[in-house]
């Protein structure tokens, strides 16, 4: 290969810009000073303690987990059925219907949030974490549909026919053959929609009606300089959890692919 020193420098700078700021999180989270600035003064874990003791944070975390787990489950289920239907069956107006399902991918979230807010208020539906779930579903389902569509497309149709041919009903064929084979896609979908939902801010802010939700709560805390270090501590924990979660998901994804002898077409790690 020919050497391209310019590209190498670019790649290093790019990665530094991407991950450098994240490394700053733990740095200041353990720094014994309320102001986020160099030089570092001393090691402390008191910000973690402060964060841990904050009851509002726990409430926000609980709400966020309810929202994100519900959204990940629901959008993956919806995506599964929509993708299956679009890959396997023919029905009238399929192209425009699928197009409208996918549209929120390119629609500004601000527009989704505002229009939903207006409609919900007009219908007299009180804002709660359920309305946030509703909004997140609109945003997350297209991602799930896209992931599940590629999972179904790589499925040989004669596998289904073989199961039918061997005496299974369409329902048991789905359970015994199709579902296990698209499981890596389901895992990917669940993980990605969970991630999108948990750090989503605009919809959570518009439709959350002041309920503590993690992203909104963190944003709010940043207004108080004294709270910043404990938010950095929270950030450090979240980064750690994300890495663990991704590693676990990747492990299962690779194991699933190895089990069916498939070719690894790239995951997250």
């Amino acid at each position, binding site marked *: 290969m020919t050497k391209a020193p310019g590209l190498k420098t670019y790649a290093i700078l790019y990665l530094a810009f991407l991950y450098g700021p994240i490394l700053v999180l733990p740095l200041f989270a353990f720094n014994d000073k309320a102001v986020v600035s160099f030089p570092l003064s001393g090691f402390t874990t008191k910000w973690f303690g402060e964060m841990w003791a904050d009851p509002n944070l726990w409430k926000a975390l609980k709400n966020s987990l309810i929202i994100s787990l519900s959204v990940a489950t629901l959008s993956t289920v919806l995506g599964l059925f929509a993708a299956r239907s679009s890959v396997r069956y023919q029905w009238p107006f399929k192209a425009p219907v699928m197009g409208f399902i996918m549209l929120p991918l390119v629609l500004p979230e601000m527009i989704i949030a505002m229009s939903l807010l207006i409609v919900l208020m007009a219908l007299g539906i009180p804002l709660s974490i359920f309305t946030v779930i509703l909004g997140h579903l609109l945003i997350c389902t297209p991602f799930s549909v896209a992931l599940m569509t590629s999972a179904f497309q790589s499925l040989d149709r004669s596998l289904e026919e073989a*199961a039918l041919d061997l005496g299974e009903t369409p329902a048991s064929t789905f359970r015994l053959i199709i579902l296990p084979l698209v499981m890596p896609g389901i895992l990917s979908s669940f993980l990605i929609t969970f991630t999108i939902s948990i750090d989503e801010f605009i919809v959570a802010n518009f439709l959350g009606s002041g309920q503590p939700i993690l992203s909104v709560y963190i944003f709010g805390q940043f207004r108080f300089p004294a709270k910043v270090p404990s938010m950095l501590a929270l950030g450090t924990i979240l980064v750690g959890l994300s890495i663990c979660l991704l590693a676990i998901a990747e492990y299962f994804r690779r194991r699933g692919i190895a089990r069916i002898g498939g070719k690894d077409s790239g995951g997250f790690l």
Partner: protein
Amino acid sequence: MSADKRQTMIEFRDIQKYYGDYHALRGINGTIRAGEFFSLLGPSGCGKTTLLRTIAGFEGIDSGAVLIDGKDMSSVPANMRPTNMVFQSYAIFPHMSVAENVAFGLRRDPRSKAEKAAAVEEALGMVGLKGYGGRAAHALSGGQRQRVALARALILKPKVLLLDEPLSALDKKMREHMQVELIKLQRQVGITFILVTHDQEEALVMSDRIAVMFEGQIAQLADPETLYRRPNSRKVADFIGTMNFIPCEILSENAGGYEVDIKGLGRVTLSADQVASDENSGTPAVGLRPEALTLLFPGQTSDERKVPGKIDEVIYFGDMTSYDVFIGGTDIEVRLSMRNVPGRPVMDVGTGVELSWSPSALVLFR
């Protein structure tokens, strides 16, 4: 053939099938007998796979009926039909072991676990995969996958086994080996086999009877020898094997037979059974298979009719040599092949030779 082999297993009654505007099956009629090795042969897009899938129940039909063992299948879904299929891609379930694949069809079988395991082992033994049960399905070679697919289908003891181009993914040696294995297996289990193939040689080798299909219709349904020696149309003759078509002029008709003047070969009287039934073959011509022509080497004579010729092309195959020869001073070329027996030379291009041929091997296309 025993008496029960003469019974009808499958009957097609005027089957019509459309894909949108495309007329895929255009009035299929015919019967497949119990216990025979039957082939659906034709070029791609002729409807042979569609017809096979209508038997399996994967494709609906627009009119007509498929009867299996005397029962109309129109309201019977694929999972309730007494047929099993070996798919072109084999469709081995990749997340299961070989044994789990083979046992898949026994899920609703009330037999005990041990009995089922014995049945799986027996089925694997039948296809030469004894002891492979514990292997992961995705770790198998193409030939082994096909054997697993066969075992998985045969374990249910179907009335009819459907094979959708099962050999097309294998290399030549493996394919020829599996052809023989399949014939043996079919004789052993006695189940009706229906094979879809575009390979005329494969169909001739394996089948008891063959339906040649073109454009959604069965052009001819006959045993291999009849198809080869007495094709009923120019198209069938052209599709199966090599056929020399030599233009001729029809002089007179007599009780179904014809007196014809063949370009380069001269006048011949053909009996009624030498006349292809299809009357729309275009300009009249006779067909002559390469092996019905013999090249007379120096010093050889023949009691059959002879025609002088000039060698235009020589293709050496090792055991055989194929010659293209202009006959009777015309620009009509015929292809013939001669075995390279010891002491027989390979003739050169441009050599003047004599060919012998027999009028009884001719087929007339009107």
